[in-house]
């Protein structure tokens, strides 16, 4: 590259508009990212969490490794494929901080190797997802909330810290069609076991005892007086997307087992917490999620005792101990795709800068192709249908 050109380019500012933030379930799609010379210099419209997601996306980057030794991405993909092709009862887990196409590839891979596939919803929202499956959900989009809701109850959630722009975009100060005066047109109630920063924006705070929500809900009989909509404040990244994709592809939102070649669903058996606590899986692939860093000690212990593959843009408790570490371009920043907002609306995620690493989707695609040829090449790995278990 001629030096003069580089210097000229270095001064050029590109403003990428309409960028979707990959950090929380509010999935703001109005960010403006300022890029200079391939580097993110500023982010407009985001909350502090969103801004930091972009500004610090290069901090703590992972490096490709096999058994702690530096390796190339190609070698890592080969090693990962070998582990997965040989495994008898593998686990694929994580998948919240990535995009829809990577999630689809992970499900395809699970089918090919007869894996258990589960994601973060399992350890954060398993009971609520089962409740939705059992009785259904009376819900609405955040647009409805903004335009119509005149009574908001934040129950056991703390949007002020976990979903910072939810109040201003949708639920408290947002001005909508039938709520033109914003906060003045709404009554905001906060129910929690402790006051939080969210309590400060509420008109009333009701303090309940820990684990007494069921009793309080039952006593309130909310729908006897009006029509309530219910919206889980789904947290991290594209966790809603994984539940959506898994449901449309297998019929089940989490804890899916493919060992018979077709999907089976049984929380308590095929859910990640139980599979690990019972020491059942013999290899694991963790994508875009820090299992070791977040799991109860007993579960983490088993993960560390089996061949473990981590696909992640950043170092984490999981990459630190993984057998194979494959760094990737962070979805929503250095890789494009789709993400689902907490109200199940899919939004486009843009790629705003380049990464020297491939995307999650590409890595999964390449592992899939490798495993597929290993199995077809007849290296002795059992096909899902002929596995002993199940």
């Amino acid at each position, binding site marked *: 590259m001629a030096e003069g050109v580089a210097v000229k380019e270095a001064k050029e500012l590109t403003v990428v508009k309409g960028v979707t933030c990959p950090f929380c379930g509010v999935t703001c799609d109005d960010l403006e990212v300022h890029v200079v010379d391939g580097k993110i210099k500023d982010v407009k419209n985001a909350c*502090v*969490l969103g801004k930091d997601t972009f500004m610090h996306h290069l901090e703590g980057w992972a490096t490709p490794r096999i058994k702690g030794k530096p390796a190339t991405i190609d070698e890592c993909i080969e090693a990962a494929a070998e582990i997965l092709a040989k495994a008898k009862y593998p686990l694929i887990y994580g998948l919240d901080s990535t995009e829809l196409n990577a999630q689809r590839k992970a499900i395809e891979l699970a089918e090919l190797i007869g894996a258990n596939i589960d994601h973060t919803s399992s350890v954060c929202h398993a009971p609520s997802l089962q409740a939705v499956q059992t009785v259904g959900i009376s819900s609405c989009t955040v647009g409805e909330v903004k335009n119509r809701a005149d009574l908001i109850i934040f129950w056991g959630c703390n949007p002020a810290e976990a979903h910072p722009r939810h109040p201003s975009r949708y639920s408290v100060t947002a001005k909508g069609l039938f709520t033109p005066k914003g906060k003045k047109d709404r009554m905001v109630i906060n129910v929690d076991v402790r006051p939080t*920063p969210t309590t400060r924006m509420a008109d009333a705070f009701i303090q309940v005892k820990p684990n007494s929500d069921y009793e309080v809900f039952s006593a309130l009989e909310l729908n006897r007086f009006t029509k309530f909509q219910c919206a889980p404040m789904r947290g991290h990244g594209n966790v809603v997307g994984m539940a959506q994709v898994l449901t449309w592809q297998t019929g089940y939102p989490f804890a899916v087992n493919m060992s018979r070649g077709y999907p089976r669903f049984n929380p*308590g058996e095929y859910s990640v*917490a*139980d599979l690990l606590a019972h020491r059942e899986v013999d290899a694991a692939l963790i994508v875009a999620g820090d299992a070791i860093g977040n799991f*109860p000690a007993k579960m983490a212990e088993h993960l560390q005792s089996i061949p473990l593959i981590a696909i992640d843009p950043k170092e984490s408790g999981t990459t630190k101990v993984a057998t194979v570490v494959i760094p990737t371009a962070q979805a929503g920043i250095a890789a494009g795709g789709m993400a689902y907002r907490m109200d199940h609306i899919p939004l486009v995620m843009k790629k705003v800068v380049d990464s020297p690493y491939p995307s999650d989707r590409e890595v999964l695609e390449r592992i899939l192709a490798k495993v597929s040829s290993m199995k077809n090449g007849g290296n002795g790995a059992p096909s899902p249908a002929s596995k002993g278990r199940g």
Partner: protein
Amino acid sequence: MSERRFTLITGRTTKQGRSIHLGKEATEYLEEISTLQMNPKDVEALQLKDGEQVRLKTPYGSTVVKFKKGDIPQGLIFVAYGGFINSLVGPDTQATGMPNTKGIEVEVERYG
């Protein structure tokens, strides 16, 4: 009284959400996820002084964290999501798939 039972609550905080982007080894992040919040009256009852540490214990394990006074009801303690409380959580999910990370009974005592 040197040891008391509390209900442990976990959750997200702004500091935890921001500092996680600096990396999981970053001092700011580790500081936030290793600090427990306790009602000032409980701090007094345990005779804790600023800068001291406390040990949290459940049937599954124990961990040592710093404490600070917080706006939290008596009998409850709060720690931000992060690796520090992993050793306190049991793997049983009662067939739901979700380990119980909210409202865990813990014993708290002064450490060191």
